[in-house]
């Protein structure tokens, strides 16, 4: 196997706070190839966004301890200088942020914000960059881009702002695009349009996409591979089909069961995962999910609360759980409703 386009190895992101060290990401590895989409799922505080900010090198280096390896197309990113990163950001790798209203500068025109990325990385003239901005706005489906290019973000609707954000992220034809819950704040119709847009652009340019979300429906729509995060660690990974239809970790199963299914019986109540997300300041011992896990007692010797389960990955598929394969087959089948995929 050749070297992957993006390779993250044993990434650890720790923040020092007044109360102690927050282990936001604690040993995460994954690969991503060009033209593929990796969906990262997990609840708030599971380390999804932190991971991706680390790829772009956007953490405050003085307050953040970063360990491990992030290699993008042969370039090591964690040890790279700020100058090197500046050249890559917005150019080879770029990011679509969650809240477009807060993430676009209220003080600058949409067109200017798109154009300045282009000018910075290509050295284009003002005029060229402006034309490029108009072209990008047209491509993401903004009507009358020639006039809207001079609008400010507050003059755009929510969906248009998100499109503008996407236009800005794509202006230099990035090879890696990180989308951090780009559709969370949008209504479903606009959400579907944005997803289609991303898929089209990926087909056109072969962009590698990391799609962060807590919405499994969105994952089912866009991802090739899925990585489920819990408490700063990967608990399960595999192809979309593997993860969504044959979940191999109690947490993934819990996520799936807390979602309504279109083809399942209507009168089956949804079952939420009990408890609340773990503290990253003082994470649970052993498996971080064990205090909320329905099957923790089934494992002999209370292993779940003492020993961290290893993530055994074979052929891109794996999960970190102490349950044996037979136990899972037996326990999960009682639990799982039929799933659409």
């Amino acid at each position, binding site marked *: 196997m050749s070297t992957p386009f993006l390779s993250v190895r044993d990434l650890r992101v720790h923040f020092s706070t007044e109360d102690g060290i927050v282990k936001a990401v604690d040993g995460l590895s994954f690969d991503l190839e060009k033209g593929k989409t990796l969906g990262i799922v997990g609840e708030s505080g599971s380390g999804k966004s932190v991971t991706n900010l680390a790829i*772009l090198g*956007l953490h405050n280096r003085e307050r953040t301890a970063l360990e491990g390896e992030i290699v993008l197309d042969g370039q090591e990113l964690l040890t790279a200088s*700020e100058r090197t*990163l*500046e*050249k*890559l*950001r*917005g*150019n080879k790798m*770029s*990011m679509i*942020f969650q*809240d477009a209203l*807060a*993430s*676009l*500068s*209220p*003080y*600058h025109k949409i067109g200017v914000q798109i154009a*300045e*990325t282009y000018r*910075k*990385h290509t050295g284009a003239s003002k005029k060229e960059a402006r034309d490029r901005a108009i072209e990008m706005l047209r491509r993401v489906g903004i009507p009358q881009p020639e006039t809207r290019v001079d609008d*400010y973000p*507050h003059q755009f609707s929510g969906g248009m702002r998100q499109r503008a954000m996407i236009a*800005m992220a794509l202006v230099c034809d990035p090879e890696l695009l990180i989308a951090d819950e780009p559709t969370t704040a949008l209504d479903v119709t606009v959400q579907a349009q944005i997803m289609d847009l991303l898929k089209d652009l990926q087909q056109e340019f072969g962009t590698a996409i990391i799609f962060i979300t807590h919405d499994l429906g969105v994952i089912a729509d866009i991802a090739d591979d899925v990585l489920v995060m819990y408490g700063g660690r990967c608990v399960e990974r595999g192809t979309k089909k593997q993860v969504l239809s044959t979940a191999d970790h109690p947490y993934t199963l819990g996520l799936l069961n807390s979602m309504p299914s279109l083809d399942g019986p209507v009168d089956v109540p949804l079952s939420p995962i009990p408890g609340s997300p773990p503290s990253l300041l003082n994470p649970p011992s052993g498996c971080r999910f064990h205090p909320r896990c329905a099957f923790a007692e089934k494992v002999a010797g209370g292993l779940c609360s003492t020993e961290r389960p290893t993530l055994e990955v074979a052929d891109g598929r794996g999960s970190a759980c102490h349950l044996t394969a037979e136990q899972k087959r037996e326990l999960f089948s009682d639990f799982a409703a039929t799933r659409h995929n």
Partner: protein
Amino acid sequence: MFRFLVRRTIGAAVILLIISAITFFLFYVAPRDPARVACGKVCTPQTLALVKHNLGIDDPLPVQYWHWLEGVFMGRDYASYGHCNAPCLGYSFINREPVTGIILDRFPTTISLALGSAVVFFVFGVGTGMIAAVKQGKALDKIASSASLIGSSLQIYIVGIVAMFYLSDEWHLLPRPNDNSGFTDNAGAWFGGFILPWFVLAIIFTANYTRMTRSQLVETLSEDYVRTARAKGLSGRTVFFRFAWRGAMGPIVTILGLDLGSLLGGAVITEQTFGLHGIGAVSVKAVKDMDLPMLLGVTMVAAGAIVVFNIVVDAVYALIDPRVRLA
């Protein structure tokens, strides 16, 4: 923008009218009779009546106020002085001169003091605030923050006198503060005369700007759009000035405008401390002398400065932040 200016100018005129009326009636219910003061030690009832007539204060109050307003817009005649051109803010009994002339005469000192110290405190305040924000939590931040706390608790009449004593009288480093030279007739002497008051006045204001700039920048530096700007690959300098500072400057400019407005109304304590003869000194003398027309005049100038700068601030704010709509 044009409609905004028209609307605000009309509003400002109304406000000034109200202020003038309140001030006028307030001063005229004062227990001391200005005619009695002007009349002198030996004052017969006949002389008193004559003085009253000459001063134009033998009419009922509303009529007097009307005359005053007429004077402001069209000028008026005084029996004891002659014609006073519009805008005639009144006639000072004590100085035997029209109020407008006295104010115009003293205004250069006030402007020099206000603008000069504004440059000093804005540059120093914003500069240290920026350093403190960038070095958040580090030694430099703590030094800047404590210095600003100390600065804001200092008083001009102490710092000013100490500074004058050592810097001018003892060590002869700076000229003694004076307003003998205007900017146009001898810029060097003007600069020398004002440099000490500028810095002393600035000490007190600087602290506000340091704290304001620091807290604003700390806030904007953690804004999502600043992170986006970094994610676009822009350099740290560009991100700081084009994004973080742009977001931080609105409130700072607002405070600057209001401070300038109040400084142009006369820095009473500063002028007294340094023996400068600006609007502040005129106000103090007018109060001491019970010089009502003079008091009314300086009140109107101070109020006018604040009202005008309020409009300027709103207009500038709209230029900084496109989300603010002027209407």
